[in-house]
């Protein structure tokens, strides 16, 4: 383990401890004992996550290059299993029962897509992939898009619009970082804008409602807009220093739904105020800066794409999640990495940071 590795582990442990503290606060007035002990389960997931982190920091990431298409196949199979045998919770079929725990394959798929795309764009040579920008549209965009489309559609049917869109954003961003021709990317973005009316027709009613509510939460203050309004109240009533730990009335009295999962930032901001939120944002910024530093210093194209892909997963989730709690993004089911309660997201995040440590380790040689 390098010095960088220890610093990174310290940073993610600090962030995930903040998560545990916030989960404890949100759930301590939960009616059931199991509900009150959720923070212990989160600690357990952190230990499992740390184990994965160590394992993947030891496995050379070049092995991932070899395995990328196999991972992709496993990911798709898991998603298919969800579609046919998955657990239905909160009206969506996203979970898979594996051994004693419930697992959310779409969380893993986020990472697999990144590995897959990194592998795809670095296949030509293992140095700097400078040839990618001379690829044609089919090779640079269409083929990887077809591969991305399959898991995306499977996730859409769960239904989980948020994660599906998230994967698409990851796709576009990696195209950008992989030096794909600017014109192609602009072309895709233009295509999306033009396709918007058509896509709108394909959305389910509750998805349309969420998007409309994002534009104006007050059209349905008790239904779809309720969460956004309550979450804004929670964040904004925190003021400079917050209401104090265990004293946030929005989360303690359950006005804020999903206070320990998707809306955990609102719970945190209510109790710790602007200063707490600022510190949390800074910690997240340091984490992402590490991934970018590693990407910049990585000697080969695969490592560079992989590291920046991991950075993308983290930063886009953080941005959408926080923007969503203050009403600046539509409500989609994206967790806040390392903070939100939930094993799948936590373990996958730890795992991907393990990969990052490994990439960093190889730079030295």
């Amino acid at each position, binding site marked *: 383990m390098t010095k960088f590795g220890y610093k990174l582990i310290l940073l993610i442990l600090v962030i995930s401890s903040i998560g545990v503290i916030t989960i404890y606060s949100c759930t301590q007035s939960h009616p059931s004992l199991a509900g009150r002990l959720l923070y212990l389960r989160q600690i357990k997931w952190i230990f499992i996550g740390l184990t994965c982190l160590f394992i993947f920091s030891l496995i050379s990431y070049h092995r991932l290059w070899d395995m990328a298409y196999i991972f992709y196949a496993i990911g798709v199979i898991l998603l298919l299993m969800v579609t046919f045998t998955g657990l239905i919770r909160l009206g969506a079929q996203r979970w898979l029962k594996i051994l004693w725990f419930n697992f959310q394959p779409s969380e893993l798929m986020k990472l697999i897509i990144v590995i897959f795309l990194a592998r795809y764009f670095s296949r030509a040579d293992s140095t700097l992939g400078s040839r990618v920008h001379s690829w044609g549209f089919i090779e640079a965009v269409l083929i990887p898009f077809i591969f991305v489309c399959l898991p995306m559609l499977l996730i859409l049917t769960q239904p989980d619009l948020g994660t599906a869109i998230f994967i698409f954003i990851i796709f576009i961003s990696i195209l950008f970082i992989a030096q794909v021709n600017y014109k192609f990317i602009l072309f895709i973005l233009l295509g999306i804008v033009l396709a918007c009316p058509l896509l709108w027709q394909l959305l389910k009613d509750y998805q349309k409602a969420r998007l409309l509510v994002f534009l104006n939460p007050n059209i349905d203050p008790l239904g779809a807009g309720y969460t956004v309004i309550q979450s804004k109240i929670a964040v904004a009533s925190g*003021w400079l220093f917050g209401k104090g730990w265990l004293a946030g009335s929005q989360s303690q009295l359950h006005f804020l739904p999903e206070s320990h999962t998707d809306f955990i930032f609102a719970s945190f901001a209510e109790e710790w105020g602007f200063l707490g939120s600022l510190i949390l944002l800074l910690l997240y910024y340091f984490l992402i800066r590490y991934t970018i530093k590693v990407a910049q210093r990585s000697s080969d194209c695969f490592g560079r794409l992989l590291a920046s892909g991991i950075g993308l997963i983290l930063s886009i989730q953080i941005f959408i999640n926080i923007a969503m709690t203050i009403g600046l993004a539509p409500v989609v089911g994206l967790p806040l990495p390392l903070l939100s309660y939930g094993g799948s997201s936590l373990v996958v995040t730890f795992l991907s940071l393990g990969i990052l440590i490994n990439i960093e380790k190889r730079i030295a040689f």
Partner: protein
Amino acid sequence: MTRLQIFHRSIKVVFIFLCLALVYYQIIQSKRYQQLSQANRIRILPQPASRGFILDRNGRLLAGNTLSYNVLITPEGTSFPADEITRLSSILSIPARQLKSKYNEGYTAPFVPIVLLRGISLSQAVTIGQFKYDLPGVSVQAEPKRIYPLGSLASHVLGYLNKIDAWRLEMLKEYGYKLQDLVGYSGVEEVYDYILHPRDGGMQVEVDNKGRLRRILGFKSPQGGRDIELTIDLEIQKIVYNNLNGHTGCVIILNPFNGDILALEAFPNFNPQVFQENRPSLINSLLNDPDSPLFNRAINGLYPPGSIFKIVVATAGLEKKKIHSQDRFFCRGDMQIGNRKFGCWKMHGWQDIISAIAESCNVFFYNLGLRLGPQSINEYALKLGFNQITGIDLNGESTGFIPYSLWERIKRRQRWFAGDTANMSIGQGEVLVTPIQVARMMAIFANGGILIKPRLLKSIRDGDRIIDFPSKHGIKLQISKRTLNIIKEGLIAAVNESGGTAEILSDMRVSIAGKTGTAQVANARAHGWFVGYFPVEKPRFVICVFLEHVGSGYYCCRLAKNIIEQMLEKVYCD
């Protein structure tokens, strides 16, 4: 710049953007959201207090309170509680459709209770209590409710209660009145609302998102309204009510010395309870009734006084020295004034002032009126309390009207003729008075020249303390004793001498003085008046009886006779 550097830059921009957004919400907008957060968790649970009682002068109950039971439902989330509504509809035997519309009307937010139905019976409340576990979210709340145990008795004195309306709320807001409060709309319920009105208390509690109580933050104990004692004597009021029932008109009995209203009844009347029962059809029928039962004829009704007004003309004549007690006029049954013939109801022959009052001779008063002129009559009418409110503690009293020549000129663009004066002298033409004004005028002759102020409030009970409400001192009028005595003689003669218009009141155990009146109205039967006082030697009561369209004052005398007889039996025993 490489694409990775661009990526790094955009990450920085995104984080700065998030920081700025947090500055905006958590610092700039924080005050507003803190209030919203308070509003989320803090609820006020009102604890209704009861309205003060209204009692008669001897402490007997005129308006009180009882407990009423309301059915409340607390909506959980946004879904409609169809199950509970169906069950409730079968328990209460009310169509589910009606309950549903109440639910939709009352819905404001999840976990805010909605009143589905007011005033269910105790047994229904108990039944709902038994089904408590099948009816989550449904609760029964007891609330004090106004009752009027005597039905429509004294309804025009008591008035009625109703939900506060927009302009009353605007006016009374700063005195702590709230939306949904009940306030008096007429009668003493309205005038003394500030005494009767309860100060609701309440608990300030912290609740969670399901509206469940977490802890109590504060408590303000409810304060009931204070009770008031009226000057009304329930016994007399009952007698009056029973006698007047079925007629259209009013009866006022008051104490001529301090102005205490002992009985005031006007018909048609209404049952103030109707407004408490939430039955819009009944309320609407009251409001739209052509007989206007909500209209208090005793203080709002404007009627020509007819011969009652002769007392004013006689007083003016004696005081202005236009006539002596011995002066006589000859009545041929009619009199030529200008180019019109003015009639009398009978050929009276020679009449002095006493017999003219007693026999109500029109010709005598035509002559006297013409000697006085309209200005003097007007002056004395005002002196005796007409054309102004009496100041009784009821709202919306009418002032009445006494014409004068300048008014005729300005408003009508007509000249004042001698015929107008003649009409005015016998209380016809433009003269309009209210029954309470007539009763007050009679009190002047009963009490020896004092213009009293009628009153309804005797005392306020604040806990065990009784605060007496002093009667207002009357105004001592500048009328000579001699004049008063001559008029009194006329009033006594009207009852006691043969040929007097109120002769049927003569053979009673008590001596009565009074004057009848028959007020002609266009295209309908005449109104009848009787106003008098008794006992003559030591006056205790002034009685004013007014009946619409009965033809003559005779019927009023008969009604007065029945009332006085019954009063002698039950109340006035010495």
